């Protein structure tokens, strides 16, 4: 069962990594405009085909 000594801390560390990533997205303002984010995915100005 020695493997638990590695695996459990690794699992916790990975979880903490995910939490840190969430904090980063929160600080970057990614949750400030959820409606806009849902709508913006439909805008395709940036695809080369859309350009006239």
């Amino acid at each position, binding site marked *: 069962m020695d493997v*638990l000594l590695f695996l*459990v*801390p690794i699992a916790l560390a990975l979880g903490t990594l995910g939490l840190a990533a969430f904090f980063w997205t929160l600080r970057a303002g990614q*949750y400030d*405009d959820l409606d*806009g984010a849902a*709508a913006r995915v439909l*805008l395709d100005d940036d695809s080369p085909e859309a350009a006239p």
Partner: protein
Amino acid sequence: MSLAYLPGASFDDAPGPRSVCGFVESEGATRRLHLLVEGAHCAACIGAIEGRLTADPCVTGARLNLALRRLSVEWQGEARHADALAGAVEALGYKVAPFDPAHLAQLDADTGREWLRALAISAFASSNVMMLSLAVWAGQAQDMAPGTQALFQWLAALVTVPAVALAGRPFFRSALRAVRAGHSNIDVPIALSLLLTVLISLIELARQGRDVYFDSATALLFVLLVGRTLDFRVRARSRSAVERLLMLKAHGAAVCRQDGTVEVLPAEAIRAGMVVLVRAGERVPVDGTVIEGKTELDVAIVTGESLPQAVAPGARVLAGSVALTGPLRLRASAGVEDSHLADIARLVERAERTRGPGVVLADRVARVWTPVIHGVALATLCGWWLFTESGLAVALLHAVSVLIIACPCAIGLAVPAVQVVATGALLKRGILLRAGDALERLARIDLVAFDKTGTLTSGAPRITLWPEDTEAIHLAAALAAASSHPVARALHAAHPDAKPLHDCEEVPGEGLRAPFAGGEIRLGRAAFCGLAPANAPESEVWLARPGHPPARFVFEDTPRPEAARVAAAFADAGLPMAILSGDRPEAVARLAEAVGIGEWQGDLRPRDKLARLEAWRRQERRVLMVGDGLNDAPALAAAHVSASFTHGAPASQSAADIVLPSGDLAALPQAWRAARRARAIIVQNLVLAALYNIALIPVAVLGLVTPLGAAIAMAASSLTVTLNALRAGAPAEGRL
């Protein structure tokens, strides 16, 4: 209404009262402007607005926040380019207003982020601690080495302690504030339960005991935070919609300087003696005396009088009225602080002070619940310590397990879960809740008081009696096509095919005239048409033309089509109703009869309405006040619960607890039904939570609770309460 930023208009002209130049922020050569955009809903709107702005060579960035309807635009160059940019957006068909942070009750964005951060921490903690706890529980059934069990428990403690300290802060803060103020709220048992659970688990861990409840503590935190975060988000949406409304209506005043230049000032900056310009269709920003110009003045929102008044030089006008037919030049008689508007604001303040803060249902339950549970826990402690041989440590453990099992989780979730569902459903219908406990208060009303003009009536006159001569009707409609006076508009709307006459002239305050075969035809007041004014109770206009007898039109501010049905709906439910109006008593009496409301009063000034509401309060009646005018604002603030409309005066919206869609009186009984339903479900939820407790507390008192049992009980009770709450969103039966 909006006159500035017409497409193609020259922006070198004197800035209109809605110029946004004053709101530009500068940072070096970069200018930044925040605008509210009303009417943007979809991806196409984002594309159109941002595309139009970035097409401007000066603009370096434009981004529209669809949730807040807030447009941020940055450009290089002059600050006065702002009006051109705002004009460009308005030309696309969106209404814009400068974003003014002064109107925000609180910075919702920061609070929202704090809730999300706490939620994320508790989600991380509860999932990982549950993973560790499940391993321990399984290990207890099979044969995990005690050392491994202890390791897992210590790891769980390592996660739980910082998580509770960080994510539990909102609860601790609220509980501390309540305790300091000498009362109890729902957060007091929650905070106590969190602290005690963590504390006793740490002690048990140190003693290498079995009763470690870290999973319960983190799961409790997570479930409560989900409820609170959702509750906050839906309320913030509702509130920000109301704040947007207020910002869209607030604007400055065009002040004429002595050298003839026109400058736009915020309404607060106006002092007595300044000369203010009001264009046709605009709202008068301050009280004043007319020095030039003649117009019909719409005072419905200020005094409740339904018919426009003619004003001429020398007349006094009140802030909030709308110049309908012509421009005015006013001399401000007072600054904003001592205007009619400020009087109303002071009355509103007084009314709010006398009403005082209400106690929400959840906190009332907590006030009963907390002492009972703490009493049971204390009795458990004494019982085990005094009457058994087990010692203080075990007695303490059993006492704490009573506090843990007493499910503050389900009680803490019972109210927010229902409010999220009910508020969200009302928001979809366009009904905005400003006060957090508006639903609870609305559910318990026992009297409905209506304002008349604009609330029960449509606020626009309609012709109720036509002359028999069809040619006269046709001519009158043709003449009326030239005017924007409400009566003329009503006349023309009834016969839209009538072709406008040539050379039509409007005499403000009198009527319309146009050359006609054999003389002149006139449409207007009796005196204007050369007749003796009749003393009839109705309001009338006359049409005079050469060679024919004059024709008479009677017009009236007619009730909204749904008014009678709304009154009937409340009457069927056994709720008495009353009308409180500032209009003439005859008009109020006729309306009261038409919609079937027995009790009415006319000719009421704002302070009379307030006095009426305060009298009802002393009789301990819970009154729902509905009104849209500035004159209703004090009464709205004094009522048990109050509703205004999106078309109403800004002062009435900020005084009301609920804002209904523009002109939609039928939303009122719907909101009332939804509130009653929500309250019924909240009560059910509290009973359900109490039942879990009644079943489980004896088990805890006897010391038979295990961490696994506590976890199962909490999950089951929270799920029951949440599933029951989902019913609050069901569409109210019997659409009105």
